[in-house]
Every structure is written in structure tokens, then in C-alpha cells.
């Protein structure tokens, strides 16, 4: 397997409605920034991989077809990935494979969602015939599993609010974040409206328009880069069914096995010790402690203790989502790639005001569907010794 590295990243300013741009314009805002960051021009791009969540969100069937020209794919190979919420991460992983296989030297990966073209709640709540109309909404799917986590781990009730405060304050340091709330407090989160008990308004992600792009290159491209690159040490993807008898919705095996495979491939034996910063897909604040356990940063039932002790803040043992994460910006199809890009930005030393000092190894993580599709990568500031 050949080496691969992130040469550059780009993202849009994420907003509820980016009515100033078309879909092409939204993608190009991220792409142009990624190309500039990578110091790469269009003729050097060999292929494009586009990721996006459901086509019903934009009302375009396979929008990469009409976008081919604007996103620079015309005349080149173009793949369109869709693995639900994990798609942004999966898209980065597919682009990585193209480079690792030696097929291409430089690949452009782009992910976007323009949720304001429609209404995600509408698109997700289309009720097929013969099913029970148990309308619970987006958070209603996950809230019962959060309740189960609280029961199982005996976590104190304020853990979710602690995560929300941390992420929203982090987002205030990120110029691209949708929600930037430097003054949010534990009290204000706990005073916010209870939406899906036990999940409060301030503990949920927004709905955003946005895009993210990465330029991934091979070893020669990485070594030719004038700036620091993020070497991709390992990638992993795992899937399990949405529902099956015995499914662990709190600590899904697919996530745990993806993480195990990832740490093994990266040569990491103690993730909490060896990973400097993690960008984890947390659409509801309680998922931070849940995923800390699922990823092996903490024993089952103990993830909340890292949160409570402040270890996931910038400056803690494992800063989680210094960018503000999904809780601050959620352009669904791009949210996973944003985690992967932010991890890369940290080890490239280009995360600006939300830079974690001395970050050398970072995790990017995404999940989707009913906690069933997982994609992740580990990036470092130095090339892996052998792959």
C-alpha cells in the first residue's frame, strides 16, 4: 500500500441558508479554498469524488451529474458516494484508496449539503405505506438510546450540557462555524427547551448549508508540497444493520470494530495517550461520551468522566471537536468530511484560533444511519514508517 496525505482542506461558511450561492457555487467555495490551501491547480487533479446524503434533500437525482463541469470533474473520473451521515468520511476514505492503490496522484474529494433547498425533516419523515406513523422527529430516534446510555453508565444529567457548552464555545473560535456562541453557559443550556426528553434544544445540532473539500495526494505530491501535509496513517469503515435482535444502540459493535481496526492499522495501542485531538461526529451532545467509549478512549460506562473532568476541552488530555463540531455546523453530507478535514488541519497546524497546541496525531470520525455506518481516519504530521 502506498502512502497518502491531505495536501489541503477547504470549507464554506456554514449557515442555515446560503441563499447567496447555487449548489455549484457552494461546492466551489470549499473546493477553491482546498486547492489554494494545497497549492494545487486544476490540471494536477486526476479525479473527483463527491459525497452527499440523500438526493431528496436537494431534489436532484445524482446532482454530481449536472455539477460535473463546475466541480472540475468533466473529462475526469467522478465517483459519487452515499453512506448516510458517514458519507463525508467515507468520501475521504474512497479518495484515499484511489491514491493508495496508485491509481491517481492527486484526488479532489468534496462533500456538500444544501439543506435549505428543501426541509430535512420533511425528506426524512416521508412515511411509506404500511408503516406505523410514529412521528418522533430527528432527535426522537436517538433520544431513547441516549436515555439507555444514561441508565447504563449512571452518568450525571448535566454531562450533555457540558458538551454543548464546550462545543459552542469552541465554535466561537472557528470563523466557518454556523453557530458561534462564546457566552453560552451550563445554566443557559439547562434552561433551554426540552425537545426530546432527555435532549434539550441547545444539545442538538443545527441544520446547515455547507460544503467541505480535501486534496489528497501521494507521497511524491506530499513531498512536493510547500506546506505541512497531514499524512493519512489509517482509515477504517464498518457497517451493521439498522435494527436486529441484540443490536447495541448505545455502543454499536460496528463502531467499536472500526475503531479497533483503525488503531491497529495506525499502530496505536493506547488511543487516549497517543491521539492529540479528535474530531468526532456528535450531532447530539450526549454522543460525545458515548463515542469516547465506542472508540476506545474510555472503558464502557466511563466516557462521561472524561467530559466531566474537562479532559475533552482544548487544553485537556483529549480535546474533542475544537472546531465546534456537528453541534455548531451540520451540512449533513459534508459534516463527516468536516471532521476529517478539521483533524487534518490540526496536524497541519492550520486550525487558526481553535488550534490544539502541538497536535501531531488526530482522529476524524463520522457515523450515519441508525448508528450503523462508521468511517474514520487517523492523520499525523509525520509520514507513517511503513504501511
Amino acid at each position: 500500500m502506498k502512502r497518502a496525505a491531505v495536501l489541503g482542506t477547504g470549507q464554506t461558511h456554514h449557515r442555515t441558508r446560503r441563499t447567496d450561492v447555487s449548489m455549484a457555487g457552494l461546492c466551489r467555495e470549499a473546493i477553491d479554498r482546498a486547492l489554494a490551501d494545497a497549492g494545487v491547480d486544476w490540471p494536477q487533479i486526476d479525479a473527483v469524488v463527491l459525497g452527499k446524503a440523500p438526493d431528496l434533500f436537494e431534489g436532484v437525482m445524482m446532482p454530481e451529474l449536472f455539477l460535473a463541469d463546475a466541480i472540475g470533474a468533466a473529462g475526469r473520473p467522478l465517483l459519487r458516494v452515499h453512506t448516510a451521515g458517514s458519507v463525508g468520511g467515507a468520501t475521504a476514505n474512497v479518495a484515499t484508496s484511489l491514491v493508495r492503490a496508485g491509481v491517481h496522484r492527486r484526488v479532489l474529494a468534496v462533500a456538500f449539503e444544501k439543506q435549505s433547498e428543501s426541509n430535512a425533516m420533511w425528506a426524512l419523515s416521508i412515511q411509506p405505506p404500511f408503516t406505523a406513523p410514529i412521528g418522533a422527529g430527528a432527535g426522537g430516534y436517538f433520544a431513547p438510546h441516549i436515555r439507555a446510555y444514561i441508565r447504563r453508565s449512571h452518568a450525571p444529567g448535566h454531562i450533555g450540557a457540558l458538551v454543548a457548552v464546550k462545543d459552542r464555545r469552541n465554535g466561537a473560535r472557528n470563523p466557518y462555524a454556523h453557530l458561534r456562541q462564546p457566552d453560552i453557559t451550563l445554566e443557559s443550556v439547562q434552561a433551554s427547551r426540552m425537545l426530546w426528553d432527555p435532549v434539550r434544544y441547545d444539545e442538538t445540532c443545527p441544520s446547515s448549508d455547507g460544503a467541505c473539500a480535501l486534496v489528497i495526494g501521494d507521497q511524491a505530491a506530499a513531498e512536493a508540497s510547500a506546506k505541512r501535509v497531514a499524512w493519512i496513517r489509517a482509515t477504517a469503515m464498518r457497517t451493521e444493520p439498522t435494527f436486529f435482535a441484540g443490536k447495541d444502540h448505545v455502543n454499536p459493535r460496528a463502531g467499536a470494530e472500526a475503531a479497533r481496526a483503525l488503531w491497529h492499522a495506525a499502530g496505536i495501542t493506547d488511543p487516549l495517550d497517543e491521539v492529540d485531538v479528535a474530531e468526532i461526529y456528535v450531532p447530539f451532545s450526549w454522543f460525545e461520551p458515548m463515542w469516547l467509549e465506542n472508540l476506545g478512549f474510555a472503558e464502557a460506562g466511563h466516557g462521561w468522566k472524561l467530559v466531566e473532568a474537562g479532559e475533552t476541552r482544548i487544553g485537556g488530555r483529549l480535546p474533542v471537536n475544537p472546531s465546534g463540531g456537528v453541534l455548531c455546523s451540520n451540512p449533513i453530507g459534508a459534516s463527516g468530511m468536516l471532521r476529517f478535514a478539521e483533524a487534518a488541519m490540526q496536524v497541519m497546524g492550520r486550525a487558526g484560533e481553535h488550534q490544539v497546541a502541538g497536535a501531531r496525531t488526530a482522529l476524524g470520525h463520522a457515523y450515519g444511519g441508525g448508528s450503523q455506518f462508521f468511517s474514520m481516519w487517523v492523520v499525523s504530521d509525520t509520514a507513517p514508517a511503513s504501511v
Partner: protein
Amino acid sequence: MSAPRVAVIGFAQAPCLPSAGTTSGVETLVPVFREALADAGLDRRQVDFWCSGSSDYLAGRAFSFVNAVDAIGAYPPIAESHVEMDAAWAFYEAYVKILAGEAETALVYGFGKSSAGRLRRVLALQLDPYVVAPLWPDSVSVAALQARAALDAGIVTERAMAEVAARSRADAGVSEPVDLAAPYIADPLRRHDCAPVCDGAAALVIASGERALAGPRRAWITGVAHRIDVQGLGERDLTTVPSATAAASAAGLPDDLDVAELHAPFTHQELLLRAALGLGDRVRINPSGGALCGNPMFSAGLARIGLAAEQVRSGRARRALGHATSGPALQQNLICVLEADVREAES
């Protein structure tokens, strides 16, 4: 270390029927997986990577592919991915995974219930959403604009198109005769010029290393490439297929092909593709009857690769081409070269 050699070692497809199976595809896929794995001599637990192609707009539901994972029996968890494209591109993703050394075996599948909606109208949503799709140009009308351009340019004739249909029907054992006096569906396309709407699924098993050699029959993949053209129907010369030509060049399409399975849902598209790929009269085209006799959306392209591989695996051909297309008017094209023997000079 040089890139591993990869072979097609198993293939199966569901019968193409005008209307069959559930919207989710699960019940259709279960026997297809079983058959493809049996053909490959593999147990499902020996599959390192699963990859599928399908479309939410065929089912009319967001995340429609998620259900299909149930057909795999994905517990303990599996390594898996999905493209919102014909499964021929899922095959490409899986092939690259193997080349990268991330897997040795992969099962690729495509599925879709084309009959669930009004297919030709649904496909209008593939067109530019600002200036084209609001006019709802259906897929048959769009293909007709391409056919007209080819007729006007003298590249095809209605008779040559009818001959493509007649040969395809004869190969597929379809008894319905081709009728040049039949009314147009969308001028200049008649019923025999257009693929029928049908439901289906297909699965392909590929492998490298010892797994590739273990089974009784294999077809080596010696070149794969794909390209996309601009979509604007008025931006392109609709009578050429530059993306197919470029993909063929990148894949190293040999000039001594025995067989080609071309994914041409319309008769004129086969003629345009033959020209774009430089396929001479010596090449046997679509012995399966082609997409004109069965075009299950999102698996028909993958099936072309599987059927071309069948030609090689059965010994009927030494070199075969599997081709897939996606998008309006042959916008995106994939070329896969399959051979009985791996040539010495691998690129």
C-alpha cells in the same frame, strides 16, 4: 510491490421482470448473493468488502439503500460502502480497495425497482435543476434528441437502429418482432429502440491473490477506467461520446476484443458507443441481448461486466469488454477489460 491482479470469480443476476420484488430490494438480493457466492466458491464471511449502487429516487425514499444491508446479514459488522450510481462504479470502488491492498475479496451489488415510479419522468431529475429539470424532459425524449442529432449527422439510420434491436432480441430470445412502421414513442425512437422498464438486481464477486486462483473459473481484470462528460445537452456534441473514448484509452482497450457487452439503453447509443470505442465488425456485441432486453436501473451496468466476464470464464471469449453508462445521453462511461490470461506487460 506491484499491484495485485484482480479477477471476476462470481456473478449472478435476478431475472429482469417488468415488475417484481419489494421496493427495498432485500428479498430480491438474498438469492442473488447466494448464487454469486456459490459461483465464486466463497462463504459470505469470506467477503472482505461489500459495495453497492442504487438510487433513492428509484424508491422515492431517502436512505433507501440502508435497508438492503439487511440482505447481507451484516452482523458481525462488515466493511461496506455505497455509491449513488450504477453498481458498475461500486465495482470500481471495490476494485480500487483490492488494488490498495485493503481487501482481497469483494462482493459488489446493484438493485432498484425501476417500476416503482414513472421511470422516464423520475430520470428528468438528473438534469440541471435550474434551467432544464423544471421543464421535465423525460429520459426517452432526451435520448431522442441525441438520436436525432446522430441521424442528422448521418452517423446512424433508423434501419441500422432497428437492426441493433433485432439482433438484441434474437440473442435474448425475445420473439416480439422489430417494426420499422411502428409509431414513434419519442420521434425518432420507436418502442424497439428503447430499453423496457424492468426491476432487477445483480451481484459480482471479485478477488485477488489466492482467492482469485481458488475458484474454478475466473476472468482477469486487465484494465478499468471511467470518465464523465459535461451534462449540458446543448454544450456537448451529442453524436460523440468523449468520456467513453477517454475511458477506453485509459483502460487500454485492446483492439483484438472478442466480445463487448455495451450498456446502451437505446439502439442509437450502441451505434455511438461502437464508434466511440472503435469496435469493428469482428467484435461480437451484446450476446446477452444487452440492456435493450433488460435494463434494471443501477444494476444493468454492473451486469454488463458480469456478463462479459461470463464470456471469458466460460471460454467463449479470450478478451471481453464490459461497459456501463450513467446519466442522460451517455454522459458517464466506464470501461472494464476482462481477459483469460494476464498479459505480461501490466501497466
